[in-house]
């Protein structure tokens, strides 16, 4: 398993090549997780909601229902890759992006309020779909705090890179 670390200021092309490398054949889906009212925690949702405008059938956020979206994608024919984008604390510089392939997604417990990404990834994997988690290092989780500049830059970068990858596959 190879995790990719993309620090703020690293070349955009490196991230794009890494995501292209993780994505298998077929369409690419983005599923943004998080809570937009808690500052940087909303990074994943913002990436997905922004991409939803040009790619309404390939970008989804927590607001669309995570489990339902995953089930819908799993039932589509053919290969595909789902990128879960989520704000995380990977103990790195704010705005750092980490791409974790399927085999690196750890199983966490399901709770009343949360179905883990590992279960979603397993369901998708059984139907021949690839998955990876794209982590964004948070700086602030202050309630109603707004995105930090570092995470805002990472969000813009992910929107550009995913937009490019999805656009080319959409053609």
């Amino acid at each position, binding site marked *: 398993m190879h995790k990719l670390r993309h620090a703020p200021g690293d070349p955009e092309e490196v991230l794009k090549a890494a995501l292209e490398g993780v994505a298998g054949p077929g369409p690419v889906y983005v599923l943004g997780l998080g809570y937009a009212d808690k500052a940087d925690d909303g990074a994943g949702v913002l990436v997905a909601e922004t991409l939803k405008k040009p790619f309404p059938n390939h970008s989804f956020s927590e607001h669309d*229902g995570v*489990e339902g979206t995953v089930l819908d994608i799993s039932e589509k024919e053919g290969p595909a890759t789902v990128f879960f984008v989520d704000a995380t604390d990977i103990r790195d510089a704010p705005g750092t992006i980490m791409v974790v392939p399927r085999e690196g997604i750890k199983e966490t*417990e*399901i*709770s*009343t*309020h949360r*179905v883990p990404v590992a279960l979603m990834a397993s369901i998708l994997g*059984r139907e021949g779909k690839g998955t990876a988690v794209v982590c964004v290092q948070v700086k602030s989780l202050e309630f109603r705090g707004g995105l930090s500049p570092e995470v805002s830059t990472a969000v813009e970068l992910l929107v550009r890179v995913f937009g490019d990858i999805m656009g080319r596959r959409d053609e």
Partner: protein
Amino acid sequence: MKELNVPALARVEGDGGITVTLDGKKVKSVTLDVHEGPRLIEQLVRGMKPEDDVNVVPRICAICTLSHKFAAIRGMEKALDITPPEKADLTRELMMLGENIESNSLHTMLLALPDFLGYPSAVAMLNDYTDDVKRALKLKKFGNHIMEVTSGRIVHGENPIIGGFGKYPGKKALEEIKAKSHEMIPDAARVVELFASLEIPKYADVDSDKVFMSVSAPKKKFHLYGDEILVSNGKDFPADDYKKFTNERVVPHSFAKRSKYNDKTFMVGANARLINMGKRLDGHAADLFKEHFDKRWLRNPLYNNLAQAIEIVWAMESLPDACDKVASMDDPPTEQPMRKTGSGTGAVEAPRGTLYHHYELKDGLVDVADIITPTAQNLDDIEMHMKLAAERMLAEGKKDDEVRLGLEMIARAYDPCISCATHLVTLKRF
């Protein structure tokens, strides 16, 4: 003295743990410790307008969000002397069916079932029970969809308002829910089939019948709200008297309050609803209840899982009629308050049991708010059963890990929401 700990109780919502204190082979105490921080919601809403309160209080919980919304609206409407339009009542029933399907399917299939089948989690079950895990997610998705159609969003929808609805669901969306509900009844029945086939461990059985409480739904129906509270000993009370039969108190090891009825623990939840109102069921749910109910339900909380499964069938079967009724009515205007000062209690059945919201309003603002959650009512009962089970399992020579799992299964069977239950601050002055 030895302690046997489950430091973090998994597959429940919130931060809690179990501590068993042993003196030799004797169980001295078993405590469900709630570490989750207090929320201060009841103080936070003091001085708020009623319409703001009903938007704030559902934030207590993202899974019972509509139960909190409904309980708050019911309490406020009583305090403001509002009789909601019939279409609002029916749409609220519909949204509660969605929440019940969503929550019960997640809890039964993904949180409780792995213990019984010997898996550490639903992820581990996936290889052997692929269809069932996917079925659970499909049911959850459908419940979420109904919540979205009725309340406006999957979580924290704001459509339900005091006196009615901001926007009523459209006919097309209702038709789709109706059609899908027919299609999904076999999925709901499969959940019952799975839980009915499980052997329920006897270590949690008490020697005499427990006390169960639930609302009594209006018109002698089986439903998820009501102004009367039924007790399984045959008594009933107006919901306004909730303080007399919940008797809240504090304990040192927990941020959550505790309840006892006549100095005895009691249980709320799906099994309480079926024990108290099961005879009101009809359709396939009634058949399943008749087939699977036995006297052990009255003595062992692990049957709550099967009761939740039967409720999913009930909810699924109730959807077509609920959709038809809502679709057949014109949208009524929102009812307006008849007074600005008054009090009211809203009692509803959240997936995990009876939820009370009580408000006292003064000159149009919240003066007093009191929220009693199902988990807070169940905590004493959970501890009682865990102590009994720990004593039995240790007497049988079970290993520590087996005792831990047994106790976790009991706690989990109540489907506890620790986040919701914590709204207590103990202030110590030295």
